C-alpha cells in the first residue's frame, strides 16, 4: 500500500503527517504558514519526496479551516477537520469520551460516547489560540511566556470570555489599574475554558476520559490545568496531539493514487486564478502619494522647541489603552519634549522614566501645570500627583482647536478605541465611542501584521500601492479575521489585504461607530488623530471614503497628551503639585489585590501604593472603598426601585407549596404582580438569589445560544438557584404580550423576554427535579385572565377555585398599578428636586431588568454619585403621551424609551438629558437606538448610548458619561455666553 499523506491547513499553521500501511506515523511536520499556503505546501511535498525517494505514488487528503478552497483548487479530497479528529481518535484512543480541541481560530468539542455529537465554535473566534495570542501581545508577552506567568497566579479576575474583543476591554483596565501579570495571565486562560464550556458544551456534561488536542492545549500546560480544574477531571494530552486532524485526514484518504511531484507542480500552477471583490486602489502612483504627503506635512507645530527664559512648562500625559503619550510644552504652547510608547502592561514606570528624563534635561524647569487623561488617567494622576485629570474627549478637542479653531469634527482612532465627536457652538456635541464589539481598530491591524510576520508600519505601508484592495466590509474584527482568511483563499496578495484592512477600519469607524449615512456630511473642518492615522494608508482610505481632505496634525499620535498639556496651561493655578525631582528618585510602586468587604458586591480591588503613602484603588463598583464617610445625598431611582422590589420577600402561605420566582428579565417588573397573586392564593413564595457572576456561571453550561443577551443568559443561573433551594414549582410564564400602556401600536414583549421560558424548559436538566410552570399567559386581557389562569393553575395544583383566582388577580393588578404609580410619583418628586436644587437630570433608559447589579454594573450609582438626579424611563410615566414615531412602536418597554426621549426634548431644559443602556446582542435595540437618537437629535439634544454585557469594568462607560457631563457643562456655558440659538 502506498503512503498516505494527511495535510491539515489551519488558520495559522500547516500540519502534515505521513502514514505507512501499519498506520504508523513515519513523518510529521508542524509550522506556521503565514498565509502562504501554496508555497509552504509545495515545500512540504518536496521534503516528503526527498525523504521517501522510492515513494512517488501516494494517497493524499486535505483538511483544516483554510484547506477547503485549497483542496477545491487542486482537486483533492477534503475532510472536514472535526470529522478527521473523530476518525483519528477512534483509531488511536478508542476509549475516549470527550475530545476538546483548540486551534488557531477554532474551538471544538467532540462527544464520542452516549450519543456522538460534534460541536464547533460559530462565527465567534473567542477562546481560541488567536485569542490567547492577542491577549498575550496585549501584555507584551508571547503565549509561552503567558503560560509561564500563569503558573504563579494568586488571584483570578473575571474576564468576559465570549469574544476576544470583550475580553480585551476587561483586561486593558486591569493592566492600567496595575493588576499583576501572573494573575491576568491565569485569568485569560480561565476565560478560554469558560468560553469553551459555555459556547460549545451547551448543557452537555463533559465527563469521562477527556483528550486535549491542538496547539494551545499542547503547548500551554496551564491552560490544561485550568480545564482540569474547572471540569474537575484530569484530561490527557496524547503524543502527537498536534497532529490528530492530519492523522485522521490521512486515514480518510480515498483510493486515488497521486504522483507527489505532479501534485506539487499542480499546486504551483493552480493558484492566483481566484477572484474576490476589489476596491479602487489607495494611490494610483507614487506621484499621487507624494502630493498627499506634502499636503499633510503642512499641519505642523514645533516639536523640538526650547523652554522660554521663564522656564515655565506644562505637562500632559495620555495613558491610553495600549500606549503612553506624554508631552512637555513651553509657554508658547510649543512642544519641548514628548514620548509615544507602548505601555507594556504597566504605565507607571514609563511615566516615571519620562519625568526623570524631563528633570535631567531641564534641571531648572518650572512646571506650572500638569494634567492626565486616558484610561490610566487616575492611576497616573495619583501616582505622580498631577494637578488635573480630564476626560479624553476634552483633551483631544483642546488640542484640535490649536490646529483649526473652527474644527467641527474630530476622529481619533487609537490602539483599541475609536473616538469621534462633533462640535457645534464651541462645545462637544455628540460623542461616538466604539462599543465593545468593534473596538479592534489599531491593535487589530497590529496583531494582524504580527500574525503575518510584519511590523504594523511596514504592514500598513504595503497597502499603499495595492492595486486591488480586498473589500473586507465593515464588521467587528473577529469576523474580519475570517474575511481575511477568505480573501487569502481567493488569492488576494498581502498588499491588497493590507489596503483592504486599512479601508475596513475606516468603514468601521464611519458606518458602525458614527453610523453616518453619508460620509460626506461629517463636517467641513475635520481633524483626524490617534496612532492609527499615522499610517498613511488609513488616512488615505479615510479621505477617499468621505470625499474630501482632512487635517492630520504631525503629532497625531500625541494629540491627547498635547491637549492635556494645553488644558493644564489654561487651568493652571500656579506651581504644579507634580512629584518633584527628589521624590521621584525614591518613587516606589506596589500592587496588592484584595477583596472589598464593604458590601455584598465583594468587588475585587487592586490597591496601588506609591512611595508608601499615596494610594490608588481600582476595580471598585462604588465609591465605598475610596470615600470615607462622605455622605452626599444621591438621587437614584434605580436604587429606589430596588428598594420597592425588596419589599417583596420570601414568605410562607397556608398551602404547603412553595412557588419559586426567578428574578430575571421581566420578573423585575412583574414581581409585585406575581408575588401578590401567589401569596393571596396561599402559596409560599421564594425568590431566586441576587445575580452574581457566580450565579451566572452555575447556569452557563445550559445556554444554547451564545449570542443571546446577557440578561437572558442570567436566567439559567437563577433557575439553578431556585432548584437548589428546593422549591416545589418554578413559575416563569411565557408572555407574548405585556401590559398595554397605550403608548404604541401594540404592546408586545421582545421575543427573548416573551419566550425564554421555553428555552429553560428544554435545555436545563436542573428543572427536571421540580415543576416548571411556563404556560402562555396574557396579562393584558384582564377580563379573561382569571378564567384562563384558573385553568392553567388547575393543571398543576388541586383546589384552585375561580373565585380565589379572581380575588387574587384583582389584588395583583392593584398591587402592580400601585407599584407603577409609586415609581411615577418618585419621578415627579425627583424632577421637582432637580428643578429646585438646579441639579442636572439624567434619564437612564433601559429595561426593568437593567436594575440588576450584575447587568448594569453600577452605572446608575456612578451617575448619581456624580451629582446628577437619576430617573428611570418608567419614572416619567406621567409625562408620556402617544406621539408619531418613524418606526413601528410595538413593544411596551420600548415605547417608554421613545416617550422618555420625547419628554427630554419637550422639557427644553439643557439640564435634562438622556442616556440609553443597551444590552449587547439586543436585536430590538438596533431599532430603538436609532429612533431614540433621531428624536433627540431633531431637538438638538445629545444622545449617549452605553452598551453593556458581561463586562465588569466601567472604564469606557465612565469616559462616555464624563464626556457627556463635560459637554452639558460646556453647552450651558456657551448658551449663557452667546444666547440660545432656538
Amino acid at each position, binding site marked *: 500500500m502506498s503512503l498516505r499523506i494527511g495535510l491539515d491547513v489551519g488558520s495559522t499553521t500547516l500540519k502534515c503527517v505521513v502514514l505507512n500501511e501499519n498506520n504508523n506515523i513515519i513523518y510529521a511536520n508542524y509550522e506556521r504558514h503565514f498565509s502562504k499556503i501554496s508555497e509552504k505546501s509545495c515545500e512540504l511535498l518536496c521534503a516528503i519526496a526527498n525523504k521517501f525517494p522510492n515513494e512517488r505514488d501516494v494517497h493524499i487528503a486535505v483538511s483544516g479551516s483554510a484547506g477547503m478552497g485549497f483542496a477545491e483548487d487542486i482537486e483533492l479530497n477534503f*475532510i*472536514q477537520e472535526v*470529522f478527521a479528529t473523530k476518525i483519528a481518535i477512534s483509531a488511536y484512543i478508542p476509549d475516549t469520551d470527550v475530545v476538546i480541541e483548540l486551534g488557531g481560530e477554532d474551538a471544538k468539542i467532540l462527544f464520542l460516547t452516549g450519543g*456522538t455529537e*460534534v460541536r*464547533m465554535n*460559530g*462565527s465567534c473566534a473567542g477562546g481560541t489560540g488567536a485569542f490567547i495570542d492577542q491577549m498575550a501581545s496585549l501584555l507584551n508577552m508571547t503565549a509561552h511566556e503567558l503560560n509561564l506567568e500563569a503558573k504563579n497566579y494568586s488571584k483570578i479576575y473575571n474576564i468576559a470570555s465570549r469574544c476576544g474583543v470583550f475580553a480585551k476591554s476587561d483586561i486593558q483596565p486591569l493592566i492600567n489599574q496595575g493588576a499583576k501579570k501572573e494573575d491576568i495571565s491565569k485569568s485569560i486562560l480561565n476565560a478560554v475554558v469558560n468560553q469553551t464550556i459555555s459556547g460549545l458544551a*451547551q*448543557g452537555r456534561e463533559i465527563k469521562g476520559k477527556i483528550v486535549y488536542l491542538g496547539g494551545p492545549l499542547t503547548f500551554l500546560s496551564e491552560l490544561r490545568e485550568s480545564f482540569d480544574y474547572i471540569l474537575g477531571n484530569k484530561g490527557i494530552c496524547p503524543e502527537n496531539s498536534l497532529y490528530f486532524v492530519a492523522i485522521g485526514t490521512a486515514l480518510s484518504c480515498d483510493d486515488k493514487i497521486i504522483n507527489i511531484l505532479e501534485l506539487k507542480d499542480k499546486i504551483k500552477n493552480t493558484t492566483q486564478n481566484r477572484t474576490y471583490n476589489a476596491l479602487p486602489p489607495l494611490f494610483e502612483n507614487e506621484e499621487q502619494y507624494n502630493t498627499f504627503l506634502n499636503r499633510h506635512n503642512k499641519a505642523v507645530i514645533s516639536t523640538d522647541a526650547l523652554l522660554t527664559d521663564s522656564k515655565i512648562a506644562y505637562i500632559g500625559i495620555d495613558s491610553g489603552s495600549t500606549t503612553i503619550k506624554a508631552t512637555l510644552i513651553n509657554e508658547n504652547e510649543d512642544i519641548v519634549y514628548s514620548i509615544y510608547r507602548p505601555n507594556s502592561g504597566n504605565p507607571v514606570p514609563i511615566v516615571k522614566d519620562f519625568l526623570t528624563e524631563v528633570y535631567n534635561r531641564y534641571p531648572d524647569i518650572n512646571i506650572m501645570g500638569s494634567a492626565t487623561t486616558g484610561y490610566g488617567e487616575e492611576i497616573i494622576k495619583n501616582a505622580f500627583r498631577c494637578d488635573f485629570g480630564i476626560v479624553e474627549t476634552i483633551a483631544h478637542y483642546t488640542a484640535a482647536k490649536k490646529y483649526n479653531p473652527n474644527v467641527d469634527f474630530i476622529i481619533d482612532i487609537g490602539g483599541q478605541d475609536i473616538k469621534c465627536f462633533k462640535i457645534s457652538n464651541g462645545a462637544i456635541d455628540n460623542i461616538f465611542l466604539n462599543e465593545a464589539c468593534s473596538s479592534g481598530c489599531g491593535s487589530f491591524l497590529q496583531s494582524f501584521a504580527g500574525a503575518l510576520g510584519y511590523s504594523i508600519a511596514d504592514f500598513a505601508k504595503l497597502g499603499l500601492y495595492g492595486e486591488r484592495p480586498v473589500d473586507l*466590509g465593515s*464588521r*467587528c474584527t473577529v*469576523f*474580519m479575521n*475570517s*474575511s481575511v482568511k*477568505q480573501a487569502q*483563499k481567493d488569492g488576494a496578495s498581502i498588499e491588497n489585504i493590507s489596503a483592504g484592512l486599512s479601508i475596513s477600519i475606516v468603514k468601521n469607524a464611519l*458606518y*458602525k461607530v458614527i*453610523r453616518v*449615512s*453619508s460620509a460626506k456630511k461629517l463636517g467641513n473642518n475635520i481633524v483626524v488623530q490617534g496612532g492609527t492615522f499615522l499610517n498613511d494608508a488609513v488616512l488615505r482610505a479615510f479621505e477617499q471614503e468621505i470625499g474630501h481632505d482632512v487635517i492630520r496634525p504631525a503629532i497625531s499620535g500625541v494629540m491627547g497628551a498635547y491637549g492635556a498639556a494645553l488644558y493644564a496651561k489654561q487651568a493652571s493655578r500656579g506651581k504644579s503639585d507634580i512629584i518633584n525631582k527628589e521624590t521621584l528618585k525614591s518613587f516606589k510602586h506596589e500592587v496588592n489585590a484584595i477583596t472589598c468587604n464593604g458590601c455584598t458586591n465583594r468587588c475585587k480591588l487592586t490597591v496601588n501604593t506609591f512611595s508608601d503613602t499615596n494610594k490608588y484603588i481600582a476595580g471598585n463598583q462604588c465609591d465605598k472603598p475610596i470615600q470615607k464617610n462622605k455622605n452626599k445625598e444621591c438621587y437614584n431611582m434605580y436604587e429606589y426601585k430596588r428598594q420597592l422590589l425588596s419589599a417583596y420577600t420570601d414568605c410562607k402561605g397556608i398551602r404547603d407549596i412553595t412557588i419559586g420566582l426567578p428574578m430575571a428579565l421581566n420578573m423585575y417588573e412583574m414581581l409585585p404582580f406575581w408575588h401578590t397573586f401567589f401569596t393571596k392564593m396561599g402559596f409560599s413564595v421564594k425568590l431566586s438569589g441576587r445575580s452574581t457572576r457566580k450565579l451566572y456561571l452555575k447556569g452557563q453550561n445550559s445556554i*444554547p*445560544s451564545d*449570542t443571546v443577551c446577557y440578561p437572558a443568559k442570567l436566567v439559567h443561573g437563577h433557575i439553578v438557584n431556585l432548584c437548589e433551594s428546593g422549591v416545589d414549582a418554578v413559575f416563569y410564564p*411565557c408572555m*407574548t404580550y405585556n401590559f398595554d400602556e397605550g403608548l404604541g*401600536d*401594540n404592546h408586545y*414583549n*421582545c*421575543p*427573548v423576554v*416573551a*419566550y*425564554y421560558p*421555553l428555552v429553560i424548559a*428544554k*435545555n436545563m436538566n436542573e428543572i427536571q427535579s421540580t415543576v416548571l410552570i411556563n*404556560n*402562555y399567559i*396574557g396579562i393584558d*386581557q384582564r*377580563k*379573561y*385572565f382569571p378564567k384562563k389562569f384558573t385553568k392553567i393553575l388547575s393543571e398543576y395544583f388541586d383546589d384552585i377555585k375561580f373565585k380565589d383566582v379572581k380575588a387574587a388577580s384583582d389584588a395583583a393588578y392593584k398591587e402592580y398599578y400601585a407599584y407603577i404609580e409609586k415609581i411615577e410619583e418618585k419621578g415627579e418628586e425627583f424632577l421637582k428636586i432637580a428643578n429646585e436644587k438646579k441639579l442636572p437630570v439624567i434619564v437612564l433608559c433601559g429595561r426593568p431588568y437593567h436594575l440588576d447589579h450584575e447587568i448594569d454594573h453600577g452605572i446608575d450609582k456612578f451617575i448619581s454619585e456624580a451629582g446628577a438626579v437619576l430617573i428611570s424611563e418608567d419614572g416619567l410615566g406621567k409625562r408620556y403621551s*402617544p*406621539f*408619531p*414615531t*418613524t*418606526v*413601528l412602536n410595538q*413593544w411596551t418597554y420600548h415605547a417608554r424609551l421613545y416617550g422618555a426621549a420625547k419628554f427630554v426634548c419637550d422639557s427644553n431644559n439643557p439640564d435634562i438629558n438622556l442616556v440609553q443602556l443597551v444590552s449587547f*446582542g439586543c*436585536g*430590538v435595540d*438596533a431599532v430603538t437606538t436609532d429612533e431614540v437618537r433621531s428624536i433627540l437629535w431633531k431637538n438638538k439634544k445629545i444622545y449617549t448610548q452605553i452598551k453593556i454585557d458581561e463586562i465588569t469594568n466601567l472604564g469606557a462607560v465612565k469616559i462616555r458619561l464624563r464626556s457627556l457631563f463635560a459637554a452639558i457643562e460646556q453647552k450651558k456655558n456657551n448658551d449663557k455666553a452667546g444666547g440660545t440659538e432656538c
Partner: protein
Amino acid sequence: MLDQNRVEFTREMKDSYKILAPNMLDVHFSMIENLFKSSGYNVEVLRNTDQSVIEEGLKYVHNDTCYPALLTIGQMISALKSGEYDVNKTALMMTQTGGGCRASNYIHLLRKALKNAGLGHVPVISLSIGGIEKNSGFKLTLSMMVKALAALSYGDMLTVLKNQTKPYEINKGETDALVKRWTDFFSNEFAHNRALSPLAIKKYMKKIVKSFLKVETEDREKVKVGIVGEIYVKYSPLANNNLEKFLFDQDCEVNVPGIMGFMMHVVGNGLDDVELYGGSNWKKLKTKLGLWLMSKYESYINEPLKNTKYIQPATYSHLRELVAPVMGHGCKMGEGWLLTAEMMELCESGYKNIVCAQPFGCLPNHIVGKGMVRIIREYYPDSNIVAVDYDPGATKVNQENRIKLMLSVAREENVSDKPETVRSF
C-alpha cells in the same frame, strides 16, 4: 402611533408607476409578478444581487439590524440608484407581517433609509394580509389574495417536485427546464387571469406531478438535508450564500419546507391568541375561515402526491400536532413554533440532517432554533442539526465548513446505519 406623513401610493400612480419588490423565492415570485400585472399593477421583482446591494444596505440600515432588512433595503436602494428606473415614477413594495419580531419594522426602516438616501419621495406600499397600512392606489383585494394563494401553491408544488427530482435526474438540466416551462406557462396564464380556479388548480397540479414523473431518474441514496430558518434567509440565495446550490453540489437532496405553512402559521396565530388569552368570537371565526380556505389549497398540493414516490409536504395541522408537546402554539414571533415543528417534521420524514439558517442575532431563533436543538435530539436521537448564522461579515468559508461537518456526520451515519429505506415511514 406611526408617522402619518408617509408618502402614499395614490390612485394616479397606479397607472403610471412601476412597483419594485425584493426577491425571495425565485419560483414563486416570478409567477406572482404577472398576477399583479393582471390586477393592473406594474410590479417587477428585483433580481439585482451585486455587491452594491450589501453596500447600500450597510450604509443606510443600522448594521445590527437583521441581515434580511439590510439586504432587501439594500437591493431596493441599489436598484433605484442604478439609473434603470425613473425614481419619480417608481414605487416600492414590501411585505409586512406584524408581530413582535423586528421584521415588522422593515418597512419603516426602508422609509428611513430612503429619506437618508435622498429618495424620500418614493412611495412604499406595505403588503400585508391584515392591511396594516392603507394606500388609495393599492388594495390587496380578497380576490387577489385568493389568486396569490393559487400562485404560491403552484410554487410550493414545483419546489417539492424539483427538490426530489433534480438530484437524481439522469439528463442534467431536465428538471430545471421543466420548472421553467411551468413557471413560464403559469405566468402567461395568470396574465390572462387563467389557471386560478380551484378546478383548474386541481387539474394542473395533477399534470405537474405527471410531468415530473416522466423525468428519468436514477435510484440512489443521497444524503437528505432539510433547510429551515428565518424565512428570508431560509429561501433567498442572496442571503444564504446559495445554500441550496451548495448542498446540491455536495451531492445532497434538499428539502425546503414551503411557503404555505408559513402563511397558515401567520394567519393561525390570531386563533391561538384568542384560545390562550381570550378575545372575540368574531376574530376567531374570521381566522378559522381563512385557515379553512388555505387548507383547501394545501390539499391541492398534497392530493396528487398521494401514492406517488414523492414525499408530501407536511400539512399545517400535522405540524401543529407535532410541536404541541414541545412548546404549544403561543410562540408566534418570527417563525415561532413553526420553525421547531418543521425541524421535527423533517426528521420524521427522513431529512434528519438539517441546516437551521438565521440572520446573526435573530431573536426568535435563539428560542425556536438553537434553543430547541437539544429537545429535538431527544425526540429524534439521530437528528443532525447545524445552526448557521448569516450576516454581511460572516464568511462563506466558515459557513460551508460547518455545513460540511454536518454532512460528514451524515455520510458516516448513512454508511454505518445502512438504512433499509428511509421512505417507508
